């Protein structure tokens, strides 16, 4: 059992940038939006098909600008007659983002995307359907139909799922780190291997695009966006956050947005808490110390004390929302123990061990309880807890090491050697070993793929 199937960890960074900088010519931008809409129409959800591959192949810089243009599209879908403007830092005078022909074409795309080409006054006035090609006609029909997405959410939800499939299934697209400037969304990532940070790079902003699209989801055509009232959006955040943690692709921004939308959701609180707890682990903290960031960037992982505090707050809220949430109690207990709050840790872990429904979580609870008892001088209780953990997973090295260290600490050298004897007898090949401690940081994401599949099934369809 390896601790993780991949050797590297990715952490998203918070990007601190002013608007400005170079971007592709406007004609390319609107044409790219049109290509993207075609991909949404043709993409088969849950696959890395030709449509997804086309979008996945676009350079990161162009995807960054696409984020801006899709943002403009979502605004025009609600108000097709509006003009998209921006305010350059240099002049501080409002300017149209798109020249008139491109602005008009973007409005056509918005009318098709929202399924309002034949109902909205501005769309009718501009006779947008006259310039529809086959893909736009398919898009408009799908948008009117909604295809399970509701209202004008077809492009938003199917587009988000296209971007999700690319993020999950396509090989990572990386580029060298550029100066922290330029509009659009940016994603800076760093790989952590064996406790060291390396290979800082910019990566594609598929998650950012998906989040932005889902932010525009609304429950009816006449209402403003209300993603927090949408069950699919909630499920999407939970499933993707679980996937990220299980696959060691850490992104606090994702969870922050989820929590802003669903502040009292037990699972989102839980996943937010586990993410902060993971950031407090030595493998992340060690790597942070070796990381040199380019100017203008800041990591979203802080010092371990701050991360543990945040983890405790979030996990405690998860338990308050659902007192029967045993796995949240387990994780909360561990965090409390690491903070030295042993009395409360003892309470949470005791409940967690009693109510855990699977062996692995019972193992964690027993192991952590052992540490709490040991820290508070209750050595007999500590030994009993470690032994319970060892009985659940006899090939796990952690309870044996804990028992040996405990005996050594008590001056019981023969006892230490007895525990060590069992450790010596473990098979040397790590693949033949079984210590859940090694996968503690991913175990809570074990059903990620099932959750992702469940979201996809809501929208599974043949290509139009």
């Amino acid at each position: 059992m390896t601790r993780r199937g991949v050797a590297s960890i990715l952490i998203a960074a918070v990007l601190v940038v002013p608007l400005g900088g170079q971007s592709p010519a406007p004609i390319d931008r609107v044409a790219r939006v049109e290509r993207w809409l075609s991909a949404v129409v043709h993409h088969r959800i849950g696959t890395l098909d030709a449509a997804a591959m086309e979008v996945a192949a676009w350079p990161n810089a162009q995807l960054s600008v696409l984020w801006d243009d899709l943002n403009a599209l979502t605004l025009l879908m609600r108000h097709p007659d509006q003009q998209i403007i921006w305010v350059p830092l240099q002049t501080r005078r409002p300017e149209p983002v798109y020249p008139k022909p491109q602005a008009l074409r973007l409005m056509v795309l918005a009318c098709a995307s929202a399924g309002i080409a034949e109902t909205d006054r501005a769309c009718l006035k501009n006779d947008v359907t006259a310039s529809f090609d086959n893909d736009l006609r398919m898009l408009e029909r799908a948008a009117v139909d909604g295809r399970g997405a509701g209202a004008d959410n077809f492009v938003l939800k199917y587009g988000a799922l296209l971007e999700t499939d690319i993020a999950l299934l396509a090989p990572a697209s990386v580029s060298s780190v550029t100066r922290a400037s330029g509009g659009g969304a940016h994603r800076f990532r760093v790989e952590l291997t064996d406790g060291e940070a390396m290979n800082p790079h910019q990566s594609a902003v598929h998650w950012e695009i998906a989040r932005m699209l889902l932010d525009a989801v609304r429950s009816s055509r006449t209402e403003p966006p209300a993603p927090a009232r949408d069950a699919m959006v909630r499920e999407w955040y939970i499933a993707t956050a679980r996937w990220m943690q299980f696959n060691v692709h850490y992104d606090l921004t994702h969870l922050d947005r989820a929590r802003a939308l669903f502040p009292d959701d037990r699972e989102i609180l839980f996943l937010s808490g586990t993410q902060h707890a993971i950031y407090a682990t030595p493998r992340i903290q060690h790597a942070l110390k070796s990381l040199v960031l380019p100017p203008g960037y800041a990591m979203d992982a802080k010092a371990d004390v701050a991360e543990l505090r945040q983890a405790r707050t979030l996990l405690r809220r998860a338990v308050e929302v659902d007192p029967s949430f045993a796995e949240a109690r387990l994780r909360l207990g561990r965090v409390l123990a690491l903070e030295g709050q042993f009395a409360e840790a003892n309470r949470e872990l005791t409940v967690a061990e009693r109510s855990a429904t699977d062996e692995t979580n019972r193992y964690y609870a027993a192991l952590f309880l052992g540490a709490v008892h040991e820290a508070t001088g209750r050595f007999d209780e500590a030994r009993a807890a470690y032994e319970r953990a060892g009985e659940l997973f006899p090939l796990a090295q952690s309870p044996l090491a804990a028992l040996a260290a405990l005996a050594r600490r008590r001056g019981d050298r023969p006892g230490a050697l007895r525990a060590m004897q069992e450790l010596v007898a473990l098979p040397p090949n790590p693949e033949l070993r079984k210590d859940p401690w090694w996968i503690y940081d991913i175990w809570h994401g074990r059903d990620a793929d099932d959750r992702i599949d469940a979201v996809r099934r809501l929208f599974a369809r043949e290509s139009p």
Partner: protein
Amino acid sequence: MTRFHAAALVLFGAEIARGAHGGVAAQAPFKSRVEAVRVDALVTDHGRPIRGLGAADFEVFDEGVPQQVDLVSFEQIPLNVILTLDMSDSVAGERLDRLKDAGRSALATLEQGDQAALVTFSHAVAVRAPLSSDASAVRQALDEAAGAGETSLVDGVFTGMMIGESDAGRALQIVFSDGLDTSSWLTPAAVLDAAKRSDVVVYAVAVKSAVKPEFLRDLTSFSGGRLYELEKTADLSATFKAIIDEFRHRYLVSYTPRGVAKEGWHRLDVRVKRKGADVKARPGYLAGG
């Protein structure tokens, strides 16, 4: 969930493998022994070992209380050398080859009566060869050793230390790691506590990086050993040989504590009554439960 399914299959295999290893535990050569205070001391004059000292040349102060030195030995006591080697992801290719070469070099220096053991660690700690005077068996285990994964440095060091304690011989643990701990269950504090109770001397070799190897620094300091931070692993073999050479030139000073508490931390001060003599020994020990 491909990865988890893969892990589950591995776990199933592990249950079968455990049965196959059922006989190993019974053969593990652990013996208990009577507690005594032994202090390994390196005595040098301008970096060169001073030879020929006797018990009368030493002064040992336990918590400031002068002690009667019972025995001083030099060179003639066989060594137990425990190689504790990092075999995580970062040790691969040429670095792994050099590490194995260094291990072989260390084993080649063993003399009549010496014993050696091999512990490797990635996320899993593996005792590849228990303490044995058969250096060729340890060498074979080293040749066959391979690893991948994260780094359980702290768990690995503790295991090596316990192997050192399992035999009455004079124990030297040589630790190599090119990274920082990422997956141990034991905390550095717990293993430092064990080191303060142990007479195993730990020498550690780390590869220089942006992050200081604080655990190895503290560990070697508490055990009276030494930390080497190398720029490159090309020097590993020479370093391992130098460690054993230096250890052979250490005196083993033993005494029965008198006039001090039985439990708790005991500050030690080892001196040599000779001008210019520099003594390197562990700064203290932890007694009792």
